[in-house]
């Protein structure tokens, strides 16, 4: 039986400082993450010892230098937060990796909490900048000039499932899911076919089918094999093909449908071969067609639209869910997935209140029409960009949200809580609680470990190889009887 789909996202945000001729992205990122003041985060290391980004899921190790910053740099660039998240500087972008969650609803809540944390620190950071300058953060994936940065999803998978099977079934799924997970983009780049508007921010950047790379020659399926958990039992499927979504509905459906398909792959429940003749070409063809009518060619010679491909996955998923015990959230995902696909078949514009690329397309169209601009105007690109602006008063997605123009799936209260509170049903609970309770003695953190420096004793590392353990149910009693880190360590060893 498929294992629970523990999940999380890592979002790299766009960063710029307006009116700063000497804008330096890296120092701006450092200023930003350090402007977010959680007391303890200021001196806790990110524990790089157990990281291995060069292991390939196809069973080999790739040559290369592993990045290990010195301690001062480490602390300046990495913040582990009390909600269990990691907030850090990755290359030239601020990145927010949300804590591990067990379902798409909580994922939306925690990804949205990340937006607020970035916005909070943006305000604080701007206050430290010279007068007249303004830091801006965008939750997007491209600068429209050929530079892209990622929004990655992670899903826990059973190590026993062959990677070949995963690749085979996921490829057509990823190529077609853009119809609800795309964030929308004005124009094309990276030598893509010219177009007015397309579904995805990222599709233009995928140049190969399967590989370990994330920064050049990006693959539709990434092979990084770094489970951050018991590697005998698990793999962490690292998905780099997605867009940074603003819409709660798009985030929810992206995560939910993908998790269900992954469970089906684990259970051998995909009995149709939807392999594409040329996935790299098809992902762009699908993205470049806002009518959602264009067909792509399957290896079998069949011609299907992306919506028809998704309907095939949905039909298999409905049978799968009906035939066994599945996660309680699956039924709601199937319902929303079906509603969206039906609307896409009739007229994608019906989704102007819920799916990112349609919300954005309709917003831009209305604006251009009323103000007399065209799709090639700087205003069109500006609208695209500002849709992703994190400022609540200027960000256009937030404006539409405030005006009741977009469907919400979570509450502001839930998001506010997630800024400071970890999910209760994964190891993120233990991580977050340790920071809250024993922050002074936390020495270093990674996804699957937390180490303590108590007095002059050697550092003690607690391993968390099971993503579902360390939940509130598992550790509350232990935490409550451990008043100090020393007591916690003693109780763990007892």
């Amino acid at each position, binding site marked *: 039986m498929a294992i629970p789909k523990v999940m999380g996202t890592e979002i*790299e945000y*766009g960063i*710029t400082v*307006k009116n700063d001729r000497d804008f330096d*992205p890296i120092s701006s990122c450092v200023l930003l993450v350090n402007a977010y003041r959680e007391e303890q985060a200021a*001196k806790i*290391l990110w524990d*790089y*010892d157990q990281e291995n980004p060069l292991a390939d899921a196809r069973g080999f190790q790739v040559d290369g230098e592993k*990045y*290990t910053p*010195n*301690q001062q740099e480490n602390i300046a660039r990495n913040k582990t937060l009390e909600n269990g998240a990691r907030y850090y500087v*990755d*290359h*030239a*972008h601020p990145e927010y990796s949300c804590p591990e969650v067990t379902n798409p609803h909580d994922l939306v809540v925690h990804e949205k909490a990340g937006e607020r944390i970035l916005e909070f620190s943006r305000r604080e950071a701007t206050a430290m900048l010279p007068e007249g300058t303004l830091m801006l953060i965008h939750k997007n994936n*491209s*600068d*429209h*000039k050929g*530079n*892209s*940065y990622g929004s*990655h999803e992670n899903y826990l998978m059973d190590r026993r499932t062959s990677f070949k099977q995963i690749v085979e079934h996921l490829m057509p799924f990823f190529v077609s899911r853009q119809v609800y997970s795309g964030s929308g983009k004005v124009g094309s780049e990276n030598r893509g076919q010219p177009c007015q508007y397309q579904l995805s921010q990222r599709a233009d950047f995928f140049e190969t089918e399967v590989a370990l790379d*994330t*920064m050049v020659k990006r693959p539709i399926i990434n092979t990084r094999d770094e489970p951050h958990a018991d590697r005998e039992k698990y793999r962490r499927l690292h998905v780099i093909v997605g867009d940074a979504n603003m819409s709660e509905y798009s985030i929810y459906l992206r995560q939910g449908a993908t998790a269900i398909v992954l469970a089906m792959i684990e259970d051998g429940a995909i009995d149709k071969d939807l392999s594409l003749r040329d996935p790299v070409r098809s992902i762009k063809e699908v993205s470049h067609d806002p009518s959602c009518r264009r067909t792509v060619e399957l290896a079998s010679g069949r011609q299907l639209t992306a919506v028809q491909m998704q309907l095939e996955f949905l039909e298999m998923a409905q049978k799968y869910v009906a035939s066994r015990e599945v996660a309680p959230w699956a039924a709601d995902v199937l319902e929303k997935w079906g509603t969206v696909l039906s609307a896409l078949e009739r007229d994608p514009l*019906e989704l102007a209140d819920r799916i990112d690329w349609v919300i954005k397309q309709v*917003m831009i169209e*209305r*604006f251009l029409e*009323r*103000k007399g601009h065209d799709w090639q*105007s*700087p205003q069109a*690109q*500006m*609208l695209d*960009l*500002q849709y992703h602006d994190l400022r609540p008063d200027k960000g256009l997605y937030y*404006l539409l949200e405030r005006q009741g123009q977009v469907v919400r799936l979570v509450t502001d209260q839930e998001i506010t809580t997630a800024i400071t509170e970890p999910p209760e049903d994964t*190891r993120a609970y233990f991580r977050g609680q340790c920071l809250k309770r024993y922050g002074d003695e936390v020495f270093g953190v990674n996804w699957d470990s937390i*180490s303590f*420096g108590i007095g002059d004793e*050697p*550092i*003690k*590392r*607690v*391993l*968390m190889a*099971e993503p*579902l*353990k*360390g939940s509130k149910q598992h*550790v509350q009693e*232990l935490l409550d009887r451990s008043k100090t880190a020393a007591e916690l360590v003693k109780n*763990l*060893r*007892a």
Partner: protein
Amino acid sequence: MKRIQRTTRVIGDADAASLGIAMAADATQKQKKGGGDGDGGGEKGGEGGKKLAKKGEALKEEMDALVDEIDEVLEENAEEFVKNYVQRGGQ
């Protein structure tokens, strides 16, 4: 800073496996390179048609107001902003 310069050392085994969390049996070994709505029906003509037209008008007004609100917050110097928005490639 002094505190964080200590290295991780071997510590005793501990079995909290039932909690899924366990003390590292040999932390030193791990220290390799440390440091670092839909639109509704299309009914036309007659009373229903008039009602729909009215509704359509109201909707258009609402949308125009929304566009004006967007225009108010939209970056004034769009051309320059878009031109200067350059990011370094990421993952």
